[in-house]
Protein backbone atom coordinates (compact mmCIF):
# COMPACT_ATOMS: atom_id res chain seq x y z
CA UNK A 1 0.00 0.00 0.00
CA UNK A 2 1.29 3.45 -0.88
CA UNK A 3 0.04 5.28 2.17
CA UNK A 4 2.88 5.53 4.62
CA UNK A 5 1.21 8.09 6.80
CA UNK A 6 2.89 8.27 10.18
CA UNK A 7 1.10 6.32 12.83
CA UNK A 8 0.42 8.28 16.01
CA UNK A 9 -0.18 7.05 19.53
CA UNK A 10 -1.82 9.99 21.28
CA UNK A 11 -0.96 11.28 24.72
CA UNK A 12 -3.93 9.65 26.43
CA UNK A 13 -3.48 6.19 24.91
CA UNK A 14 -1.71 3.23 26.51
CA UNK A 15 -0.66 0.13 24.60
CA UNK A 16 0.41 -3.01 26.45
CA UNK A 17 1.86 -5.78 24.34
CA UNK A 18 3.63 -6.10 21.05
CA UNK A 19 3.68 -3.42 18.37
CA UNK A 20 5.16 -4.26 14.99
CA UNK A 21 5.04 -2.83 11.49
CA UNK A 22 6.79 -1.03 8.70
CA UNK A 23 5.81 2.56 8.88
CA UNK A 24 6.90 5.49 11.01
CA UNK A 25 5.46 5.52 14.50
CA UNK A 26 5.15 8.54 16.80
CA UNK A 27 4.40 8.02 20.48
CA UNK A 28 2.96 10.79 22.62
CA UNK A 29 1.32 8.34 24.99
CA UNK A 30 2.51 5.16 26.63
CA UNK A 31 3.75 1.81 25.32
CA UNK A 32 4.65 -1.15 27.52
CA UNK A 33 6.00 -4.31 25.99
CA UNK A 34 7.87 -4.60 22.75
CA UNK A 35 8.19 -2.56 19.55
CA UNK A 36 9.54 -4.00 16.27
CA UNK A 37 9.59 -1.48 13.46
CA UNK A 38 11.43 -1.33 10.15
CA UNK A 39 11.15 2.47 10.18
CA UNK A 40 11.58 5.50 12.36
CA UNK A 41 10.30 5.38 15.91
CA UNK A 42 9.78 8.73 17.62
CA UNK A 43 9.02 9.19 21.30
CA UNK A 44 7.74 12.71 21.83
CA UNK A 45 8.36 14.70 25.00
CA UNK A 46 5.11 13.48 26.56
CA UNK A 47 5.77 9.88 25.50
CA UNK A 48 6.58 7.11 27.98
CA UNK A 49 7.95 3.87 26.63
CA UNK A 50 8.75 0.90 28.83
CA UNK A 51 9.66 -1.55 26.13
CA UNK A 52 12.39 -3.26 24.19
CA UNK A 53 12.75 -1.53 20.85
CA UNK A 54 13.95 -3.01 17.59
CA UNK A 55 13.72 -0.21 15.08
CA UNK A 56 15.61 1.31 12.15
CA UNK A 57 15.88 4.75 13.69
CA UNK A 58 15.03 5.89 17.18
CA UNK A 59 14.36 9.58 17.86
CA UNK A 60 13.86 9.95 21.58
CA UNK A 61 12.48 13.13 23.14
CA UNK A 62 10.62 11.50 26.02
CA UNK A 63 11.07 8.79 28.64
CA UNK A 64 12.31 5.38 27.63
CA UNK A 65 13.20 2.38 29.74
CA UNK A 66 14.39 -0.76 28.03
CA UNK A 67 16.71 -2.09 25.40
CA UNK A 68 16.97 0.08 22.31
CA UNK A 69 18.30 -1.66 19.21
CA UNK A 70 18.44 0.54 16.11
CA UNK A 71 19.84 -0.71 12.81
CA UNK A 72 20.54 2.84 11.65
CA UNK A 73 20.76 5.34 14.51
CA UNK A 74 19.58 6.32 17.96
CA UNK A 75 19.19 10.01 18.73
CA UNK A 76 18.63 11.28 22.27
CA UNK A 77 17.24 14.79 22.03
CA UNK A 78 17.65 17.37 24.83
CA UNK A 79 14.44 16.37 26.61
CA UNK A 80 15.11 12.62 26.49
CA UNK A 81 15.30 10.55 29.67
CA UNK A 82 16.54 7.07 28.86
CA UNK A 83 17.46 4.13 31.09
CA UNK A 84 18.68 0.92 29.51
CA UNK A 85 20.87 -0.34 26.74
CA UNK A 86 21.38 1.34 23.37
CA UNK A 87 22.77 -0.68 20.49
CA UNK A 88 23.16 1.16 17.18
CA UNK A 89 25.91 2.00 14.68
CA UNK A 90 25.25 5.70 15.26
CA UNK A 91 24.31 7.11 18.66
CA UNK A 92 23.77 10.82 19.30
CA UNK A 93 23.26 12.24 22.80
CA UNK A 94 22.45 15.90 22.80
CA UNK A 95 23.23 18.42 25.51
CA UNK A 96 20.51 18.14 28.15
CA UNK A 97 19.54 14.54 27.46
CA UNK A 98 19.80 12.16 30.42
CA UNK A 99 20.93 8.60 29.94
CA UNK A 100 21.86 5.79 32.25
CA UNK A 101 23.00 2.46 30.88
CA UNK A 102 25.18 0.87 28.28
CA UNK A 103 25.90 1.98 24.76
CA UNK A 104 27.17 -0.43 22.12
CA UNK A 105 28.10 1.12 18.76
CA UNK A 106 29.63 -2.12 17.47
CA UNK A 107 33.02 -0.53 16.96
CA UNK A 108 35.10 -2.30 14.34
CA UNK A 109 38.68 -2.23 15.54
CA UNK A 110 41.57 -3.28 13.32
CA UNK A 111 42.54 -6.87 13.98
CA UNK A 112 45.95 -5.98 15.46
CA UNK A 113 44.31 -3.67 17.98
CA UNK A 114 41.62 -6.11 18.97
CA UNK A 115 44.03 -9.02 19.49
CA UNK A 116 45.54 -9.17 22.96
Amino acid sequence: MADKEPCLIGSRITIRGQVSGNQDLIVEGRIEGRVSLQNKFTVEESGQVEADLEVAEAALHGQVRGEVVATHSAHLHPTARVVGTIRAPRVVIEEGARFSGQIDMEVELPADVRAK
Partner: protein
Amino acid sequence: MAKDKDRPMGNTVIGSSIVIDGEITGEEPLTILGTVKGKIVVAQNLTVEPGATVEANVEAQSLTVSGRVTGNVTVRERVELRSDAKMVGDVKSPRVVIADGASFKGNVDMDV
Protein backbone atom coordinates in the same frame (compact mmCIF):
# COMPACT_ATOMS: atom_id res chain seq x y z
CA MET B 1 9.46 19.52 17.23
CA ALA B 2 7.25 17.54 14.91
CA LYS B 3 3.98 18.92 16.16
CA ASP B 4 0.76 18.85 14.19
CA LYS B 5 2.21 18.18 10.82
CA ASP B 6 0.89 15.36 8.65
CA ARG B 7 -1.52 14.50 11.40
CA PRO B 8 -5.13 13.68 10.76
CA MET B 9 -6.90 15.64 13.50
CA GLY B 10 -4.14 14.90 16.00
CA ASN B 11 -5.90 11.73 17.01
CA THR B 12 -4.35 8.38 17.58
CA VAL B 13 -4.03 6.43 14.37
CA ILE B 14 -2.86 2.84 14.16
CA GLY B 15 -1.48 2.86 10.61
CA SER B 16 -2.23 0.33 7.93
CA SER B 17 1.03 -1.60 8.27
CA ILE B 18 1.10 -1.64 12.07
CA VAL B 19 0.26 -4.78 14.02
CA ILE B 20 -0.50 -4.55 17.75
CA ASP B 21 -0.82 -7.68 19.82
CA GLY B 22 -1.97 -6.76 23.28
CA GLU B 23 -4.09 -4.16 24.94
CA ILE B 24 -4.91 -0.58 23.98
CA THR B 25 -6.47 1.68 26.58
CA GLY B 26 -7.11 5.37 26.41
CA GLU B 27 -9.29 8.40 26.73
CA GLU B 28 -9.13 9.82 23.25
CA PRO B 29 -10.58 8.87 19.87
CA LEU B 30 -8.82 5.97 18.19
CA THR B 31 -8.66 5.17 14.49
CA ILE B 32 -7.42 1.79 13.31
CA LEU B 33 -6.21 1.16 9.78
CA GLY B 34 -3.93 -1.73 10.69
CA THR B 35 -4.30 -4.86 12.79
CA VAL B 36 -5.07 -5.06 16.50
CA LYS B 37 -5.39 -8.32 18.42
CA GLY B 38 -6.27 -8.45 22.08
CA LYS B 39 -8.32 -5.86 23.85
CA ILE B 40 -9.34 -2.26 23.22
CA VAL B 41 -10.80 0.01 25.88
CA VAL B 42 -11.33 3.65 24.90
CA ALA B 43 -13.50 6.34 26.44
CA GLN B 44 -14.26 7.88 23.03
CA ASN B 45 -15.10 6.89 19.49
CA LEU B 46 -13.33 3.94 17.95
CA THR B 47 -13.16 3.86 14.16
CA VAL B 48 -12.19 0.71 12.28
CA GLU B 49 -11.35 1.86 8.77
CA PRO B 50 -11.60 -0.18 5.56
CA GLY B 51 -8.76 -2.68 5.38
CA ALA B 52 -8.31 -2.76 9.14
CA THR B 53 -8.54 -5.98 11.12
CA VAL B 54 -9.56 -6.05 14.76
CA GLU B 55 -9.57 -9.33 16.65
CA ALA B 56 -10.33 -7.99 20.06
CA ASN B 57 -12.95 -7.42 22.67
CA VAL B 58 -13.89 -3.77 22.50
CA GLU B 59 -15.22 -1.28 25.03
CA ALA B 60 -15.85 2.21 23.68
CA GLN B 61 -18.14 5.23 23.79
CA SER B 62 -19.13 4.64 20.18
CA LEU B 63 -17.90 2.39 17.40
CA THR B 64 -17.84 2.89 13.64
CA VAL B 65 -16.82 -0.13 11.60
CA SER B 66 -15.85 -0.15 7.93
CA GLY B 67 -13.30 -2.93 8.24
CA ARG B 68 -13.27 -6.34 9.83
CA VAL B 69 -14.02 -6.91 13.52
CA THR B 70 -13.99 -10.22 15.36
CA GLY B 71 -14.84 -10.02 19.03
CA ASN B 72 -17.39 -8.95 21.56
CA VAL B 73 -18.25 -5.27 21.64
CA THR B 74 -19.66 -3.23 24.51
CA VAL B 75 -20.50 0.35 23.59
CA ARG B 76 -22.19 3.05 25.66
CA GLU B 77 -23.76 5.04 22.83
CA ARG B 78 -23.88 3.81 19.27
CA VAL B 79 -22.49 1.12 17.00
CA GLU B 80 -22.52 1.67 13.26
CA LEU B 81 -21.60 -1.07 10.82
CA ARG B 82 -20.98 0.63 7.48
CA SER B 83 -21.67 -1.07 4.18
CA ASP B 84 -18.20 -2.60 3.88
CA ALA B 85 -18.04 -3.80 7.48
CA LYS B 86 -17.58 -7.46 8.33
CA MET B 87 -18.23 -8.30 11.92
CA VAL B 88 -18.42 -11.49 13.95
CA GLY B 89 -19.25 -11.22 17.63
CA ASP B 90 -21.78 -10.04 20.15
CA VAL B 91 -22.77 -6.40 20.29
CA LYS B 92 -24.09 -4.67 23.39
CA SER B 93 -25.12 -1.09 22.73
CA PRO B 94 -28.23 1.09 23.19
CA ARG B 95 -28.18 2.03 19.50
CA VAL B 96 -27.03 -0.20 16.65
CA VAL B 97 -27.04 0.73 12.96
CA ILE B 98 -26.27 -1.85 10.31
CA ALA B 99 -25.94 -0.46 6.79
CA ASP B 100 -27.02 -2.29 3.66
CA GLY B 101 -24.10 -4.45 2.54
CA ALA B 102 -22.54 -4.95 5.94
CA SER B 103 -22.09 -8.52 7.07
CA PHE B 104 -22.69 -9.43 10.68
CA LYS B 105 -22.87 -12.64 12.65
CA GLY B 106 -23.58 -12.52 16.33
CA ASN B 107 -25.90 -11.38 19.02
CA VAL B 108 -27.25 -7.86 19.41
CA ASP B 109 -28.28 -6.62 22.83
CA MET B 110 -29.85 -3.13 22.84
CA ASP B 111 -30.94 -3.57 26.44
CA VAL B 112 -34.61 -3.27 25.45
